[in-house]
């Protein structure tokens, strides 16, 4: 599973940090999203899907392994 963030789209809402604090943080200098790990454990997939859906800027992309029928969020 792979996670990417697009800082240009981030509007610093912090929704991702609230939803998956293991994976996202906010940069203290500019408030923009900071990725703590880009290949998190598969167990975090539901939380990451929620984070991607909640992100108001559409800044988060989650790519899950094709096996098991998972697709990108």
């Amino acid at each position: 599973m792979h996670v990417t963030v697009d800082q240009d789209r981030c509007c610093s809402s912090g929704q991702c940090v609230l939803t998956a604090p293991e994976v996202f943080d906010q940069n203290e200098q500019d408030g923009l999203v900071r990725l703590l790990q880009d290949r998190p454990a598969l167990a975090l997939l539901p939380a990451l899907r929620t984070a991607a859906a909640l992100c108001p800027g559409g800044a988060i992309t989650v790519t899950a392994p094709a096996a098991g029928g998972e697709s990108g969020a």
Partner: protein
Amino acid sequence: MSIVDELAFPAPRPSGCPFDPPPAYRRPAARLTLWDGNPCWLLTDYQDVRTVLSDRRFSADGRNPGFPILTRSQQELRNETPSFLRLDDPEHARLRRMLTTEFLIKRVEAMRPGIQRIVDEALDAMVGHGPPADLVAEFALPVPSLVICELLGVPYGDHAFFQRESFRLLDTTAPAATTRSAFEALTAYLTELAASRRGREDGILARLAARTDLTLPEVAVTGLLLLVAGHETTANMTSLSALALLQHPAQADLLRERPELIPGAVEEFLRYLTIIGSGLPRVALADVELPGGTLVRAGEGVLAVLSTANRDEGLFPGGEELDVTRDARRHLAFGFGVHQCLGQPLARAELQIALSTLLRRLPALRLAVPFDEVPFRNETVIYGLRALPVAW
């Protein structure tokens, strides 16, 4: 598609449950005529609303032709310096990004003890006077007002002045002259305050005033937006949520037994009560076909109604009912897209602390008047209560 002839904003809530969206919004996508004779789309569906708010082909810039002007008071202020709420990127991002570090999750978490102290002191004072008491005047309004004043560096001692003027500014039924005088009084006040804070470090106003890339009017309208949004929204969410809990005693009991449900409950209150009464205005910059099939053409205005979107049965099954155990996180009560509420971490912290403290400290809280005598306010763009008479 249905045609509505004319709709006043915010739409009246003539009968039925006062927590529900106005009946006039409960319709599929429709064309309507605004008070000034201009046409506009009324969009009420979750996916349509979410698309309009996050697709950059819709502009939030009130100076664009076709942008829906909802009330006479908005018309009156159309040529004033806009806050970033009424600008598109890159201007919007430039102004907003000066504030993003002020509302970082970690920073807001560090404010929790201070917010708890303000909440406790307000409740102590209320309990000292009552019962009965007005939960709006003694609790729901002073708490966020004190918090935002401290954060901005605005003296709370001036609260009678700026609370009165913000109410007048948001009153959609006020004559144009009242709107203008409220706007001028508040911006003059904030301009003077910002100028006097130059060279100091404390508070957002001082930090904004110190910037060489901002004009003084930009500092003042940014301060105005934070001041008004900071107390009007949270105050009304607090009092409406408290009233909703009084009307749903089993859910209040559940929250007292399981305080860990409070953060989720706050999301549910935000969803169920959605206090932005009129919907968010945008104008299309290109032809866009919305998920629900509506084709909005370039130059056409749209109103994205949050309250009906937040009752979407597909996303929130049984969504017409309050259920504090529901996963309501996908609500759009803070808007969506790049303009989504900047202060939402602070609003969440305030609501969580205020409601959990109220539940814990006043378990016997009850209405001091019959429910149908509670005065709701519909004349401002932010829905809420004029007063909430309670006893305990």
